[in-house]
């Protein structure tokens, strides 16, 4: 008997990456919700309920689910502007995320942030940042706080692949490495920064970007949510035991355009390429197949999960649609945390509520 032939049981364990079936089914439910939520957002955008920029995460759901599910409530997540599903993954109710996309007072940022600036301090989701790479030093700072206060917490910082060409990214890598800050930098490597293929703007691959800072680097198939989940469970444990920071190149693919105004394919990537990824690399389809194969899921349960996801997405839409926009006096509220009573803070000469004078 040779040792390089896995038993049937080993094969099952391997495709599950050691993730328990219950957890895997929950990850499937999470991803279905993210997919249905984003489809609903797409629909809402098309009929003018959502304005401005709107960046969908469809195709990348495995990253949100696999990276965030292993975290504790007390851990922080911070992201860029393709962050709707990550916000939900970190615990913000889908209806409050949708209400934010609609610009409503019940939104998680009171309607003042919008799609790109989702925040919830209670859930420790620290935004939603719109300048590429800008969140990298912020994550270092949150990790600095954790270390300063000697807390058993960590930060996961999501970045798009284009962020690794920003100075802010490199400065943050260096400081986090020098001070051993408890942060995991996650590059959601979907191969394109907007419409520019990463290979056209970098001589070396993403996985090499943190090596010059002596930060341990892991490459993960982000379309395999179980592999992603297992990796982040392991990395979170390492950070908690003092081994930090970490850098992860999560290979994924965006099924939709960069934003709503961007065609899915045709200019910077071919239809064949997109079709092939959608057909073969859909994180939901891959997990579904794995669970079917392992006999851990049946069609009825799957349909039930999907029905619930659709229902939650519809409820989020209905809630957002029925919510009020912010009151006019919210315009000047919260520009400052402290209104110094002696001096003037606003200079536009408009009539405004007393609290803002």
């Amino acid at each position, binding site marked *: 008997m040779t040792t390089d032939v896995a038993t049937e049981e080993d094969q099952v364990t391997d495709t599950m990456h050691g993730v328990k079936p219950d957890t895997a089914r929950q990850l499937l439910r999470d991803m279905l919700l993210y997919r249905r939520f984003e489809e609903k957002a797409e629909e809402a955008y098309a009929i003018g309920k959502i304005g401005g920029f709107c960046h969908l995460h469809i195709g990348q759901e495995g990253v949100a689910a696999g990276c965030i599910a292993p975290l504790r409530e007390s851990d922080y997540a911070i992201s860029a502007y393709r962050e709707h599903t990550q916000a939900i993954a970190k615990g913000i109710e889908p209806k409050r995320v949708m209400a934010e996309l609609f610009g409503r007072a019940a939104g998680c940022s009171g309607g003042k942030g919008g799609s790109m600036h989702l925040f919830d301090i209670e859930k420790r989701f*620290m935004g939603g940042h719109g300048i590429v790479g800008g969140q990298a*030093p912020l994550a270092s700072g949150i990790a600095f706080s954790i270390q300063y206060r000697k807390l058993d917490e960590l930060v996961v910082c999501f970045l798009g692949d284009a962020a690794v060409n920003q100075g802010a990214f490199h400065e943050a890598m260096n400081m986090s490495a020098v001070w051993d800050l408890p942060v995991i930098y996650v590059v959601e490597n979907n191969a394109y920064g907007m419409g520019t293929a990463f290979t056209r703007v970098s001589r070396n691959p993403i996985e090499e970007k943190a090596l010059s800072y002596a930060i341990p680097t892991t490459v993960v198939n982000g379309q395999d949510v179980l592999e992603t989940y297992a990796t982040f469970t392991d990395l979170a444990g390492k950070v908690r035991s003092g081994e930090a920071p970490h850098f992860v190149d999560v290979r994924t693919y965006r099924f939709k355009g960069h934003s709503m105004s961007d065609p899915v394919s045709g200019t910077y990537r071919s239809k064949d390429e997109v079709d092939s990824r959608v057909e073969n690399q859909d994180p939901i389809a891959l997990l579904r197949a794995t669970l079917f194969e392992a006999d851990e899921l049946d069609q009825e349960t799957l349909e039930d999960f999907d029905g619930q996801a659709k229902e939650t997405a519809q409820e989020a839409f209905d809630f957002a649609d029925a919510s009020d926009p912010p009151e006019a006096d919210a315009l000047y509220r*919260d520009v400052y945390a402290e209104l110094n009573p002696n*001096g003037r*803070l606003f200079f536009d000469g408009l009539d405004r509520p007393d609290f803002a004078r």
Partner: protein
Amino acid sequence: MAEMTYREALNEALREEMERDADVFLMGEEVAEYDGAYKVSKGLLDEFGERRVVDSPISELGFTGLGVGAAMTGLRPVIEFMTFNFSILALDQVINSAAKMHYMSNGQIGCPIVFRGPTGAALQLSAQHSQACETWYVHSPGLKVVTPGTPADAKGLLKASIRDDDPVAFMEGELLYNLKGEVPEDDDFVIPLGVADVKKEGDDVTIITHGKMVNVALQAAQKMERDDGIMAEVVDLRTLRPLDVDTVIDSVRKTNRAVYLEEGWNYLGVGAQIVSLIQEEAFDWLDAPLLRVTQADVPMPYAKNLESLAKPNASRVIEACNRVMYR
């Protein structure tokens, strides 16, 4: 009261606030082992240790963003820029992160942080090290901007800035660090933000100014009084946001004439805002156009004679005062 330098006053303010609040820490280039590029943080490393007095790499954008992230989670960082000239590298984090965090998070996430260091020109440091940076900061809602011109103001306002719950750009002056003055010894000597100070009273003309130029305005006012018996009132704004508009308007309504003096460039400088406010709120009291004395509208040259020509000085202030008094 104790006589001390502007540098010592800042050092005392930092020490007292770090003693008072364990969440306050100082980070920047050379702040720890070197005792500060201008020695403002002298002795703090020995007293508070490397956890709270942190030498950063030369990464202005990075350590500014790190400070903002720390402030988002409740610490109260004091981020030292070796000079505000270098803060231009960090402006994305100041403007896009610090100034907007509280607003775009709907008040959920604050940013109680102080960015401090010298602004403006010193002596023959030439174009890239001699810029007055107030306008870039004061332009953005969400930020507060503080510009002390004396040792007492430096201490009282730095303590207030550290205690304030918003991001504050605290702008000092390299040429002020050795300036001596009387400073109250009270540990709780705090000057609230948004209160201007009439540094010299007068009835004939108002000189409004801030920061280092307070001392130039006083020189000009003293010379006018001595030589010509003209009584100029010197209004030191002390903080540019929040702005004590009432004190400015009261003075102009008394003297009916005003000159704004600032170290920075003229075009959309701080003075442009002040003269706009004066014409809005004291138009009927004015007996002459409002004039501004500023840096020449050029990058700062190196040559000593050209640098002198570029900088505002007391004689240019006197000239402007004479013009608004039609003398």
